[in-house]
């Protein structure tokens, strides 16, 4: 037990337990979506793709899907300038009360989502933008903004500031140095962050629940509403959409920056 074999046996049994726990819901949803029966049961009545065929007939899910995509794009588009500039400011400029600013910018993580959602619901209601779609994107951007700042910070901190000094030395005015040196260098971080913001907005449920109503319901809320009634295989097929989107996102992240990046020590 205390030898090298014992070590890998103990560690790997925990890892395998984790792998099963992590993937079981995904695998089971994939399985359930392929049933030819009318209810979710085990073993499935038979294999068929009929629920995927029906997916395109479900207008409410289709609409919810496009609304979710729209909201997620808005979220990513707002976060790109806001998060990038904030990360550069924190890494490159002298900021008084730096710690206070950092703690302040982490508020979206420290304020519970339920409270953030309620607060934004009240404000958006007060200024009469509740019930529109773009404020949902704005709200989802606000609650996940630290992820964007983190992603860009990682690349700015890795960038040698002598490069910017060299550009200035060669006569580049500030804007040119920023556009031709800093910005291209932090691009990987910006892309990673924007991808994270998109996928998190695509999945965000609780804040979406507060900021949407029956007319502009987004996919996570729509799935939640269906779960509370009857569990039918069409819902599994809808959920598979999420699995596919997540798969594409993981693939893209791996190709863009490599998943191993997340193992690096700071």
């Amino acid at each position: 037990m205390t030898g090298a074999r014992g070590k890998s046996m103990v560690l790997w049994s925990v890892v395998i337990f984790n792998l099963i726990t992590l993937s079981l819901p995904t695998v089971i949803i994939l399985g359930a979506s392929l049933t030819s029966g009318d209810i979710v049961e085990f073993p499935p009545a038979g294999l068929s793709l009929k629920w995927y065929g029906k997916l395109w007939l479900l207008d409410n899910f289709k609409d919810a899907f496009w609304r979710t995509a729209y909201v997620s794009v808005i979220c990513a588009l707002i976060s790109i300038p806001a998060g990038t500039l904030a990360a550069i400011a924190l890494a490159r400029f002298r900021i008084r009360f730096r710690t206070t600013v950092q703690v302040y910018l982490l508020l979206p993580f420290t304020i519970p989502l339920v409270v953030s959602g309620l607060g934004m619901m009240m404000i958006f209601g007060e200024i009469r933008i509740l019930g529109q779609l773009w404020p949902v994107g704005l709200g989802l951007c606000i609650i996940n903004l630290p992820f964007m700042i983190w992603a860009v910070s990682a690349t700015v901190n890795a960038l040698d500031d002598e490069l910017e000094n060299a550009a200035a030395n060669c006569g580049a005015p500030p804007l040119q140095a920023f556009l031709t040196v800093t910005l291209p260098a932090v691009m990987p971080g910006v892309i990673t962050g924007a991808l994270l913001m998109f996928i998190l907005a695509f999945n965000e449920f609780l804040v979406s629940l507060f900021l949407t109503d029956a007319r502009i319901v987004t996919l996570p809320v729509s799935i939640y509403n269906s779960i509370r009634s009857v569990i039918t295989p069409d819902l599994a097929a809808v959920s598979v959409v999420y699995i596919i989107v997540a798969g594409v996102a993981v693939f893209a992240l791996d190709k863009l920056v490599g998943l191993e990046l997340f193992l690096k020590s700071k």
Partner: protein
Amino acid sequence: MKHSFRYPLAWRLLDWAEAAAAAIWPRRWASLTGYLLLMPAMLLVFVLVIGLIYIGENSLHELDIYTYRLKEAFSLINYRAATSATYQTIIGRSLGASAIVTAITMVLAFPYAYVMVRAASAWTRKLLLIALFLPFFIGQVVRAYGWLIVLGKQGLLNSILTDLGLPAIKLIYNYPAVILGLVQYMLPFAVLLLAPAITAIGEEAELASESLGANWIQTFRHVVIPMARPGLIGASVVVFTLTLTDFAMPEILGGGTTDFIANAIYDGFFQISNPGLGAALSMILVTIGSILVTIIFYLAGTGTLGFSGRRP
């Protein structure tokens, strides 16, 4: 033929933009540029601050049960209601569940992060990373739905039980189901926060420990875990606070039997239509969360959770 010389378009555009930038933001304000760049993010986050003020204001007004509006006069009656025995139970349950979920998640996440970081083969590492990121990118609702299919009355586990001739058992809408759902949800967060801390531990420290005669359990206890402390603290804080404030898992897998504070807040607003009570519960949740985070940051520093990599 006379040929008039012109700079390329991109150069002229850039010069024009540079002049415009200099006109809007003169050089002598350069020391303030950092604050200008911070402004969009600060304004976005300010929305949450206003929201918090709104909720705080709401919490100080009693509900008029005749008009179903909040009364004008200030009172603390919502806080009395929010600390009654019913809500004490819910607050206690949330705190207890957070402690349990944090403990289980850390025990499960640490070996995963360790094996992933130390994996000899790049393929193993990639596989473990993908297994982690895929659920991370699948939202809580879909994962909870997956668990409903696994644990439900006609679900996977119960159909296995009945096939074995055993009676079906109720596996959902109870406390353990919520804990299971939450642990599964928190695992990727915990592993991703632990992994950099484990990467920072040089393998030679472990080799040194082992060459001095320690077995792997002793090495873990006295070398690896103490050296990974910043990561363990960061990951625990995140898992604890995310669990404390969770809504979806208790709602979907608990089915109303295992309400957490967030569920009570939601019900306060939308079921019993008492925004004052919901707001008071929100303020209590924010207070508990902030106190816990402040204590931990005070004891351990924001180190693993801060934005800037360099220490000032």
